[in-house]
């Protein structure tokens, strides 16, 4: 499950775009083969940190699209600063990715 981060800085404001590969099953879909409901499997929490300091924590529900794309913005980031994104889902699976701002 890949996590991709892109940053874009305009006028001192850095937009952080994160895309996480994740099925985000809401628990309503039926498996075409077994005809049973696929149990919910979705990202619940995404944390964003700049140079180790958390500046945003997103709580997501099952209504977020598959392979979620999330954007947040932060001010005062300089090239070389580290942005770290961590996520965890309702099954306990977690992931994280860190990149340096260009």
């Amino acid at each position, binding site marked *: 499950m890949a996590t991709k981060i892109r940053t874009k800085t305009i006028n001192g404001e850095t937009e952080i775009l994160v895309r996480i590969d994740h099925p985000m099953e809401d628990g309503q879909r039926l498996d075409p083969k077994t005809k049973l409901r696929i149990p919910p499997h979705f990202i619940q929490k995404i944390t964003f940190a700049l140079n180790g300091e958390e500046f945003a924590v997103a*709580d997501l529900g099952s*209504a977020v699209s598959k392979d979620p794309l999330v954007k947040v913005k*932060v001010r005062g980031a300089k090239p070389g600063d580290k942005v770290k994104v961590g996520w965890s889902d309702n099954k306990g699976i977690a992931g994280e990715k860190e990149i340096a701002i260009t």
Partner: protein
Amino acid sequence: MQFQRRKALKRLIAAAGTIGVALGVWKSRATRAAEWPRDAYGASTVADALRNLYGTGETTASHAVKVRAPTRVQSGGVVPVSVSADLPDVRAISILIEKNSPPLAAHVHLSGAVAFFAINVRMASTSDVRVVVNAGGKLYAPKQNVEVLVGA
């Protein structure tokens, strides 16, 4: 005799509390807040979800809250919604889809970030996208609700 009993009872409750916290059965409010807000995501109406997240469902309409979403989408699977708020001390932003069940789609706690949040949501059918911003402890909503038409 009564006094002794009351003291003993107090001590028992305190002990039970400590054991509870140690076992992880009884969590302090801070830990609960840091967990995923299950009740808010289970709430079946927008008002209930807001009350669960913020303690109140009352919002003030404000021009400072801007919501961007497509007017129409072919399928409700991926609807990009972005929110920006020109308000001081923005602590949280919530996105709710009126006709979804449950309506709460996502919310973000901000501490030092710019008052902005964008995410792709799923919409079950044509519905209003409701956005609530917590700025300085008060809730604000956009002046006009954004409606997204689902289905060609």
